[in-house]
């Protein structure tokens, strides 16, 4: 079991570099919960190529594991970007590196581009939890999974990374029925078509209340 922590305050890009180099140990606070992280560690080991790189195609398989492992935590912790930073910089730093910065050797020269830093750091906003390498998987699996189809839609959404970003980083993507309908009806479409459909839905969402919309209602708005 691992006793979960969060950083005392959010890390900056410079602090992240120092943490990854081992030159900085930020103050941490306990969350008061311990979790068995072994399923996530085992999944990471299985996904890693000999050079440590992890393929983007692993997202659809790993997201359910992240979700199942952490879903018992209270939302208040799962919404705390400092928890996800701690997780990405400690227990799963090799996963984040392998998935998003495979060419960087953290022990030798941990100079990360801002876009790579964001995979460790995220930020507290709507888009930010979609940037952290682990929280994006958790929250996508949470909104996509359902009793009938399990994680089929989670996997479908991650087959098109652009679609996943387009749904998860928009506010209508917070409504489970809407996000699921997007994955169900758009994941087989070419990129330009699903982009157009998401724009159309966003336009309609300015006057249509999507909370409470049925799957058929959303489908009609997406494909009208």
């Amino acid at each position: 079991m691992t006793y979960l922590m969060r950083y005392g305050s959010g890390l900056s890009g410079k602090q992240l570099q120092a943490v990854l180099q081992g030159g900085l140990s930020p103050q941490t606070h306990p969350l008061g919960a311990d979790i068995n992280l072994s399923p996530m560690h085992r999944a990471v080991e299985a996904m890693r190529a000999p050079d440590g790189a992890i393929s983007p195609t692993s997202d659809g398989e790993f997201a359910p594991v992240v979700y199942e492992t952490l879903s018992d935590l209270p939302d208040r912790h799962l919404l705390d970007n400092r928890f996800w930073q701690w997780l990405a910089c400690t227990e799963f730093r090799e996963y984040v590196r392998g998935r998003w910065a495979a060419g960087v050797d953290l022990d030798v020269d941990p100079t990360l581009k801002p876009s790579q830093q964001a995979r460790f750091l995220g930020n507290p906003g709507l888009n930010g939890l979609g940037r952290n390498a682990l929280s994006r998987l958790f929250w996508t699996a949470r909104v996509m999974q359902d009793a009938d189809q399990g994680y089929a839609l989670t996997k479908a959404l991650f087959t098109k990374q652009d679609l996943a970003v387009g749904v998860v980083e928009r506010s209508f993507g917070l409504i489970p029925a809407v996000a699921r309908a997007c994955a169900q009806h758009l994941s087989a479409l070419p990129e330009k078509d699903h982009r157009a459909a998401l724009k159309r839905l966003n336009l309609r969402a300015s006057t249509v209340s999507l909370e409470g919309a049925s799957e058929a209602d959303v489908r009609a708005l997406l494909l009208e």
Partner: protein
Amino acid sequence: MGWQRAYPYAEDDSALVGTVSAASPGLVQRSDGTWDAFSEELALASFAVEVKVDEERLAACLPDGLSPDAFVEIAVRLTGLHSRQRRELRTWESGQQNFTVDLDPMEYVGKVDLDVVARLKAPVDHVPGFAHLAGSVLARAELATIWFSEPPKSIGDTLEVRWEDFDNDGGLVDGQLFTVRMEERPVILLNSAVPSAYDILSSKGTWGAAARIRDAVYAQIVHQAWSSILSHCFMEVVRHDEGESVDTVLAELEEWQAQVLRAWAPAFEPGESDPDLAVSALVEEVRATGSLVVLQKLPEAIQANCVTISGFNGLVKEFDRFQKEPT
């Protein structure tokens, strides 16, 4: 003419009236009308809600022959972007309702908004000038804004300044005086490796050469920093779809980006005295022109807001004094 939301059909927000009061101890209404659910440790944040519906006004939003009883439903919605939640709390067919909303503080962070809408229950035949899609909002009223964490301090028109040794940071360019970093919030980094920079820029004096140089250099830094930050915010606005409402765009931006736009909107829209209308007008203008026209206004807006000319005036005074000193 001020900015107004362009509904493509008949709607009437005055058809709904909602009132909210605290129903659990420890909830405090703040001076801005929002609710504080973070200062006290609450087991539950409970609110008593009353919603009144004006059926006649709703009927006027429907084509002839359709009655609100049969075609409209009322829904109370919860939106908490930082809590990653958008959902319905309650729906009913029509008429007044009194009920309690219970929110568990362990499920939320940041700001949560409650509102009530009257909407079409199902699609109806399309009649020009009237809503026809299922879910179309015919009326909307805000109920409450609740803070489950302390509201972020507004950066609005102030910036964090930090000293760094650029020579010792591979990500910073040696020899430069300053740079602007978009971290969780924007920060100005000053280079402590530049000789005399720290002494001059940290000086507390109100007169003399050091103070004049300090003020003039700060004016330059401030101008360039705000140029970067405002441009960054405008580009974020442009990334959003044209059809998104201004409220949605502002809600989806980082908190600090929305604060910057709100704080600076009056400088870009001087003819708009209402701050809410000013930020709406600014967002619309940024989107309509792909930000180009607004970017052209940057120098004037920043000089007006930050009075950066005073730094130059101070240098001129120092130059005059220097020239008058006997050699």
